């Protein structure tokens, strides 16, 4: 049996048009030995869920630079659960205010990586919390 490689889906749903942060994260994850499926900007949540399922990813990373981060994460989780997917780690990053962090924590999302987070932190978090 080969060792299982961690597969991560990175996306930028919502209307924001910046993805430089996501690209930096993508490279860091690849350099740590993970496979990164990278979706284009402004991908609809429904598509993100479709792709997450087809690619059987272990992690969904949602990059969000607008104010809708809690709503986006909550919808994504709900749609995944509805389809029978309960083993995906959802992490998020971008500009996240303290209130949102609290709300995300209530959803069970602890991996929240704001600007300036060292990519090594993200890698470590994923390795520790991913369900294999």
């Amino acid at each position: 049996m080969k060792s299982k490689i961690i597969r991560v889906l990175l996306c930028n749903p919502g209307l924001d048009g910046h993805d430089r942060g996501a690209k930096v994260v993508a490279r860091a994850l690849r350099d740590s030995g993970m496979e990164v499926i990278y979706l284009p900007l402004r991908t609809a949540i429904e598509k993100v869920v479709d792709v997450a399922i087809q690619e059987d990813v272990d992690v969904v990373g949602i990059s969000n630079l607008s104010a809708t981060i809690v709503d986006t994460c909550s919808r994504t989780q709900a749609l995944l659960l509805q389809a029978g997917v309960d083993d995906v780690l959802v992490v998020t990053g971008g500009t996240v205010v303290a209130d949102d962090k609290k709300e995300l924590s209530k959803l069970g999302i602890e991996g929240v990586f704001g600007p300036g987070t060292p990519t090594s932190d993200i890698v470590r978090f994923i390795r520790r919390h991913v369900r294999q």
Partner: protein
Amino acid sequence: MFGNDHVEPGTGLRLQYRKEALRLAKLFSALENGALIEQSKIEQPGGSFTHVVGISGPPGVGKSVLTGQLIKYYSRLGLKVAALVIDPSSHATGGAILADRLRVPDEVNFDRVFIRSISSRGALGGIAEVVPSALNLLTNENFDIVLIETVGVGQSEIDIAGVADTTIVVQAPGAGDGIQGLKSGLLEIADILVLNKSDLSGADRALLVLREVAAASGGKSWYCPVITCIAINGVGIDELVEAIRSHYELLDKNNALAVKRLEQVERQLCMNILAALRKQRNLSDYAEAIVSGKLSLREAVNMCIANESISFDSKTEK
């Protein structure tokens, strides 16, 4: 209009498709982690084979965009389409960025389409080891057409011909001789040649070169067509689809598909025998014996096959 109904988000039908996709995706992952799937569907000539179409060519010619357009076209026809998009893994870290899904047009109805990004995972030649088993899986699942888009460097183009029924090689106008990354081995395996980005300067020259090459490879029952495309605008896709269909028809008529399947199964047999031997024999013992002069290569091979272990205090004598 196209008969492929738009499915409302969150409704029962979309959910059903997702559950189906989940089942398939999990099987796929099992394959990537070492499980094997045999082809259970016995295909008869004249019956519906799963058409495997390989798309290869050097980097930068627009393979991903072209694949995306084909996915869109076939899914609109109501066909069950799968696409395997293979990106190279980093030799140093084993990781990969799989970004070919970026090129799939938004309008593609994901409910009829299964797209999987595959990392070559260090496989020599760029065709991930999982591909033959994956094709068996997709055939068992009654997909009408499977598109495989490959890395496009090194020997992978040649390898794709070993798994595809129809091999498309994509080129684009380049500097100098008019062709980007022209390689003779690559062109020999092409069943269809595509000149993409045909609106760029140098296209006329490139077209001439490709036509010459295609003409030189004639004399068989199939004449390799050269199709000009501007994939990003959908120009030329109709002709390409027609050429693909035409090639499939020829293979079907000559019973060539059945012959190809036999060859592919033989190749799989070979691969799996090799993998089994690697697992069951201690190859490093034989290698040491060769290096230290105790065995010749031929002796080692025969001993390995016969499963004779090496005793280190004796030296075989002839």
